[in-house]
């Protein structure tokens, strides 16, 4: 019977990304050795997340209420909106010290997968930018530096630029800590294009 409970948790944990049987087994036995209170806290946090998490009605970040904490924060620079593909991208940008607002597209354009502009939160972004009450001056497009992300950025840029806003795209280039000799020609060409004066 106890083997059934253990096996059950291992199987459930294996449903998570990047977790194979061995990792699931390790996590399972770690949970077993934890104080009951700690294990309950983990379970409670997962249930709470599933029950309360929803999309912010303004920026489509994950929120507990109608608006997320970032949109509610009046100290943030509301003149700048950073556009990202997924809510998980926000955390990395937050760590850079950026204090503007965000807009999450919930994906990127992909004709082969049938992901059209209508299936993304692009219309909502345009409405948000057009709304004079928001006083948006700059839209920073931080979609992924791959083909889908680039096409999405160019599509959004094509719509927003005629509105007289400053529309910028995050820079391409080499990762810090890498060696130039390992860079491919496309990345290097982009780094050369985006060079700046010292």
């Amino acid at each position, binding site marked *: 019977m106890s083997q059934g409970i253990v096996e059950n948790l291992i199987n459930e944990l294996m449903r998570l990304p990047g977790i194979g049987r061995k990792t699931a087994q390790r996590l399972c036995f770690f949970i077993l050795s934890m104080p009951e209170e700690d294990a309950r806290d983990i379970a409670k946090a997962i249930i709470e997340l599933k029950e309360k998490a929803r999309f912010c009605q303004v920026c489509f970040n994950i929120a507990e209420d109608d608006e997320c904490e970032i949109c509610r924060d009046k100290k943030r620079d509301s003149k700048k909106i950073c556009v990202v593909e997924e809510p998980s991208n926000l955390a990395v940008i937050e760590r850079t010290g950026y204090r503007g607002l965000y807009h999450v597209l919930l994906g990127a354009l992909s004709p*082969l997968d049938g992901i059209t502009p209508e299936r993304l939160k692009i219309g909502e972004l345009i409405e948000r930018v057009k709304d004079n009450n928001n006083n948006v001056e700059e839209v920073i497009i931080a979609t992924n530096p*791959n083909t889908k992300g*680039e*096409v999405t950025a160019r599509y959004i840029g094509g719509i927003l630029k005629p509105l007289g806003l400053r529309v910028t795209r995050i820079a391409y280039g080499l990762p810090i800590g890498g060696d130039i000799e390992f860079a*491919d020609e496309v990345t290097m*060409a982009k780094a050369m294009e985006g060079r700046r004066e010292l």
Partner: protein
Amino acid sequence: MRFKTEGIVLRAFNYGEADLIVTYLTADRGIIKGFAKSPRKIKSRFGSSLEPFTHARVSFWGKEHSNLPKIVQSDIIQPFSHVREDINDFLRLSHIIELLLSLYPEGISNKKIFYLFLQCLSYLEQAAAQIFCAEVDKNALYLLFKIRLIAILGYAPMLKQCGRCGQRGLFYPSEGAVLCVRCAPIGARPMQTSKAAVSFYEHGLTWPLSNLMRVKPSADIVGELIALLDEHLRHVLGKELKTAGFNIR
């Protein structure tokens, strides 16, 4: 077993946290898929070599008839990066790729298709990078590629004469051929075809793409044939292609 081949990236699916499943069009193995470990990480050794339309020399590792060998190395031959940055080229090529994936079965080598697609990419890249003084008509290029592709794969409709008796007639997409009044099925809807469009189509079945440097079909002919072939392919495939209705503007 390790094997090397030259391929063009058709599409890449995200898999797991940072992995990709990449579909290639290769000269010697047709359409094949490979699994790449962690190419989405910023410092990945694959760099941009797994981005769509990249022409690369690729090394795979796996069992001889593995459905999903591991991609162990990928060196860019031509990145075709300008094509990726043009929304309209990206849409046209996405449509072509969907067509390829729908009509051309996996694992069957066809060098003609590989070099046709490579040549098409080269022309689009040269046009995007403004290498040619006289720009190639991209819609005509796209049309000619489509005509050649379906001709090679054996799906080209007969437009010159009735497919049953050789008389003059109209094109019936549901029948995949031109049919005369006698041979046409009752209730089927025909499409009008102009003489000029049929003539361009007949020549296009065997023309190399380079002919578009000197032959410039009118926009009407191109538009007419694109509509006709889209309708024909809709019947051949029995479904609407996802990219067919993708209008960016």
